[in-house]
């Protein structure tokens, strides 16, 4: 059984969690004219790194909180998890 450490509940089985996408994507600034290309990049384009990757996960069957997880996409190891408010820089 793969376990993921929820920052609020502790270690739990992965089937309580849902993947929520890339945590490094930044939404274009609000109330600003945004070129189509920038929207296009924000909505569709993602990096597909081999190695450490910062992801959003949702403890959907637990405390219902979103958090960030640093995961190695090659080994599937979850290196660490963080609260959304934690400023942790990039994934490396």
């Amino acid at each position, binding site marked *: *059984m793969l376990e993921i450490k929820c920052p*609020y*509940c*502790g270690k*739990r*089985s992965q*089937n*309580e969690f849902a993947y929520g996408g890339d945590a490094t994507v930044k939404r274009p600034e609000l109330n600003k004219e945004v070129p189509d290309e920038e929207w296009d990049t924000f909505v569709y384009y993602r990096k597909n790194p081999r190695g450490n990757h910062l992801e959003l996960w949702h403890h*959907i*069957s*637990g*405390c*219902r*909180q979103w958090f960030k997880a640093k995961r190695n996409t090659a080994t599937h190891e979850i290196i660490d998890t963080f609260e959304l408010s934690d400023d942790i820089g990039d994934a490396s």
Partner: protein
Amino acid sequence: MSRISPLQNAHNKGLFGDYQEKNEGNLLKIREITDVNIYQVVQYKKSSVATSNIQLGSIKLPANAAEVSVDGQTRVQWFAPRSWIIFSNDNNISSVIENTFNNEDFAVTDVSHSRAIIQIKGEDALNVLKKGCPINFNEFKKNNCVNSVYHGITISVDMIDDSPLTFNLMALRSFSESFHHAITDAALEYGYSGQ
């Protein structure tokens, strides 16, 4: 307005499964808990009220994951950060809650009609839970709670007592019949008394 039990068409009384040649007193007991007032309390993110100072009657709000605070007819479960679930048989609990949690800092929702609670009691309760839920119940203690899944259904487990082992299992009302089926199906191996 009277409540319609979520399991009134699913839960049957009697003996089921492998109950023969077993002492009925030691059999697993499964019943639906009805007529409980259930409230969800969530503290707004903008709120700066220290919840450690808040008391619901004589109960302090649990501050950590898996904690339940108990006083007589009322139980308060830690549900998530800044979020709690209150269970009470006290019919005046709504006014107590209203006086305790102000509108500016807390969102209070009556979810009594939207949840189903199944109580399982007996030594085999642990085996029934282990069949469908990934939580390590060996480390579970009286007045611990946890949100998890049972055969894919999101549930909340509250350990009411450790002798005899008694758990209250809460699921969304819309999942209640499937959840009841999953629990009773898992219990057939041990035999159970529907109450």
